[in-house]
């Protein structure tokens, strides 16, 4: 009995599909797929586009603000938590902007003492004079330390040497290679600051 009803159900499904097929074949939309594929391949893109444009009736509608929409927007804006506070619960102060760290701050964090900073500045300046020997040398090679921390520290110190006018930096516009050399004589009037990523 169960088998019979299953067979009957399958038969009904077949008859339904046949019905759909016959209806489609009889409808005005039916065109032999092979004929249509051939036709589409033969005609140009412009002709295809033109056929569509000629049978196209675009919808006319205005998408504009209504008093209800305005009220909704106002309520949303009023209840919107400022961006800086929005993810505080999940990420703490993750969204805080990066800033600049000054010498005073480094001193207060006990990273440097004033004396130590001065002596390190003189040491790196002396090293630059010795290594460059009056010529330009590669900036990245020069600041490169044994680990990323030391590289960052050397980059930080050399920035002070350049700011004090004891050295100068030049970037090759084609290769983007950065060179550093000891400043000969007095620094010129034309000075500018550059940002260099330390890797």
């Amino acid at each position, binding site marked *: 009995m169960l088998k019979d009803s299953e067979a009957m159900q399958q038969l009904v499904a077949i008859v339904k599909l046949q019905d*759909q097929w016959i209806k489609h074949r009889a409808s005005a939309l039916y065109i032999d797929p092979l004929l249509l594929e051939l036709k589409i391949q033969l005609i140009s893109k*412009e002709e295809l586009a033109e056929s569509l444009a000629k049978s*196209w009736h675009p919808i006319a509608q205005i998408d504009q603000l209504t008093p209800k929409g305005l009220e909704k927007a106002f309520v949303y804006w009023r209840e919107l938590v400022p961006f800086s506070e929005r993810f505080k619960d999940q990420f703490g102060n993750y969204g805080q902007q990066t800033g600049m760290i000054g010498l005073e701050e480094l001193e207060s964090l006990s990273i440097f003492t004033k004396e130590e900073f001065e002596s390190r500045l003189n040491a790196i300046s002396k090293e630059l004079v010795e290594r460059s020997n009056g010529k330009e040398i590669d900036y990245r090679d020069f600041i490169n330390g044994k680990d990323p921390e030391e590289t960052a520290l050397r980059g930080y110190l050399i920035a002070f040497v350049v700011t004090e006018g004891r050295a100068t930096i030049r970037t090759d516009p084609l290769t983007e290679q950065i060179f550093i050399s000891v400043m000969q004589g007095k620094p010129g009037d034309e000075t500018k600051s550059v940002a260099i990523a330390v890797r």
Partner: protein
Amino acid sequence: MSDSTNPPGAANPSTEAAAERASLDRKTRRAFQVLILQRGRNPGVKGWEMRRYLGKDYKKILEVLSDDLKPLGLEVHLVPGPEQTDDSTRFLLRFRDPPTLTEAETAGFRIDDLAVLAATIALVNSKQGRISRKELESFLKGKFPRWRIDYSVDRYIKRGYLDQDDKDLIRIGWRTRAEIDERSLMTLILAQGTQSKTTGGKQ
């Protein structure tokens, strides 16, 4: 004298007709406002909403509105809903006459995009209303670059011209049913080559 023919409290027929006319005008205006402003994500207003806004005679009012809009080149068009009931039918305003190809281009559709849509609609219709995305892409590859096919098909799915189910079968979307005269499209595609050949022969 007139007081004797029309007893007090009885409505004057001309006043009644004027009131009816005013009510019809008001309802027609309301129907236009309801149809022209977008409510929700998809354009158009469903039958049950129309009945709520305009009353049970909403179909007659929409017919009057469609006639009134004729001079402006617009019409009220109905798209049958999935349940084929009055309530699920979607009513919308659309252009009575198709735009020119140049006008279509100014609406942000490139010729290539329009051609992809035309070929897709025609192909889907010839394949009993559905085609696998893979088969469609492999067919269109002969005429359009691969990146253009992906871009256009995805864009038309997003805009409702095409529909893709979880089995990656592409079907005709509700927007095509609303905006495109599919029968005319099929006829025009089939006539394209022969038209130019006939014209060429005559010349």
